[in-house]
């Protein structure tokens, strides 16, 4: 007999994988070939950040890192760099998860936005150090802004569609999350 909580955790992990596959699929559709479009949000990253601040065990880092690496390869980013930064950001937020339990949403959003901007900045910095050709700063900023804007939408979706709430103190006691 499988423990229902384990089952739930596993199904959410599979769900994350499916979501990543679906997002990749839609980004790859040759519908908007050409330029001048508003750069779309990095939904895989945003969803991982949403979930890690609610149920950290739904986004294990060893599931997240291969997905990001594969995305790096498929989306023609320099392989490894953005996934390394994403893992850093994810782990940073995972460590902040206990303190974020009683944060107001605006504060949480600001924290996530800060992490994302720091990641983008580091990304550009490393690329500049390694003298890789970069795209324009404006486009990068627009991309980050759309990722940040997608964050509350994903929070709302997780909340209303999947019933994912923050860990309450009683749950934390039960699950052994006390730190």
């Amino acid at each position, binding site marked *: 007999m499988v423990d229902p909580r384990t089952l739930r955790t596993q199904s959410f992990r599979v769900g994350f994988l499916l979501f990543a596959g679906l997002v*990749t*699929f839609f*980004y*790859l*559709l*040759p*519908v*908007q*070939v*050409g*330029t*001048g*479009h*508003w*750069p*779309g949000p990095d939904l895989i990253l945003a969803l991982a950040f949403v979930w890690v601040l609610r149920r950290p065990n739904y986004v294990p*880092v*060893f599931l997240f*890192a291969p997905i990001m*690496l*594969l995305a790096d*390869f*498929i*989306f*023609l*980013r*320099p*392989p*490894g*760099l953005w*996934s*390394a930064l994403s*893992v*850093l950001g994810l*782990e940073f937020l995972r460590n902040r998860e206990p303190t974020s339990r009683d944060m107001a949403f605006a504060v949480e959003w600001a924290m996530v936005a800060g992490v994302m901007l720091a990641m983008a900045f580091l990304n550009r910095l*490393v690329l500049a150090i*390694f003298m*890789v*050709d970069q*795209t*324009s700063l404006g*486009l*990068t900023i627009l*991309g980050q802004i759309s990722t940040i804007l997608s964050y509350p939408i994903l929070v709302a979706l997780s909340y209303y569609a999947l019933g994912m709430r923050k860990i309450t103190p009683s749950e934390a006691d039960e699950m*052994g999350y*006390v*730190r």
Partner: protein
Amino acid sequence: MARDRGNADDYVRPIRRLLIGILLLCLTGLFILWRIDSPRVEQLRANLVDKVVPSMEWALVPVTKTVGMIENFQSYQRLYEQNQELRSELRQMQAWKEAALQLEQKNAKLLDLNNVRIDPRYTYVTGVVMADSGSPFRQSVLLNVGARDGIRDGWATMDGMGLVGRISGVGKNTSRVILLTDSNSRLSATIQPSGQRAILSGDNSGRPTLDFIETPELVRPGDRVISSGDGGVFPPGLLIGQVAKGPDRRLRVILAADYERLDYLRVLRTHEGEAITDPGALILPEGAEAAAIDALGGTEEATDG
């Protein structure tokens, strides 16, 4: 009880931290490897995409077609205006067609008189666009032809009208086309009728810029831009587009290829350009680079308004 858990935590957390450290090291290592030995990692990328993307093809095609249908349906709303536009365009086209036919006849006659053999390198493989780059920072598309069909890196790709880009990254069944608008794309071009040479460099906008023009005064908006064939990468004389002046006073190119609808692309088989290594052998045996010379032909005055 809680204390026990705490103990387990004490063991688990350092190991976890160590594993994450190793993971980060691997990822950074991969990045550095990519920076050092880019071609090999890019080949790996091409093979990976070759594995992943065709497995999605069964779904990519219908969804793309559906979206295309919706877009087409929206355009029906403007049907009347479109019809009027098309009629007026058609009238102009008929005049052009007449002129083209006459020119073609004349050309055929002249070719016949001169006994010219048409360059055999303009054969092509047609591929279907499967996917785009998926990222707003890279302008590229994936074709469903690859090494199996004899595609090689560096070959030129056109749609029906003009140059679209070049092949960069070939997998077994797929190949990637870096579009002219990508910020990594550089192409040597000739501007007609003044014959000026320029570098067409993409900057992720829809209108790539023209750089390094010797005398920009000779170049006017509306001039034709064709590939120059310098460097032997691209065949000369392929239509790229028209010169336009951007709001920032830089010269840009309105591309002839229809970037909004890239469905079928032609990959031109380009055979290795013959390099001149020895000054004594300046005259090539098969007339391989002769076409590059006549690109300089029209340097007459074209400045008066």
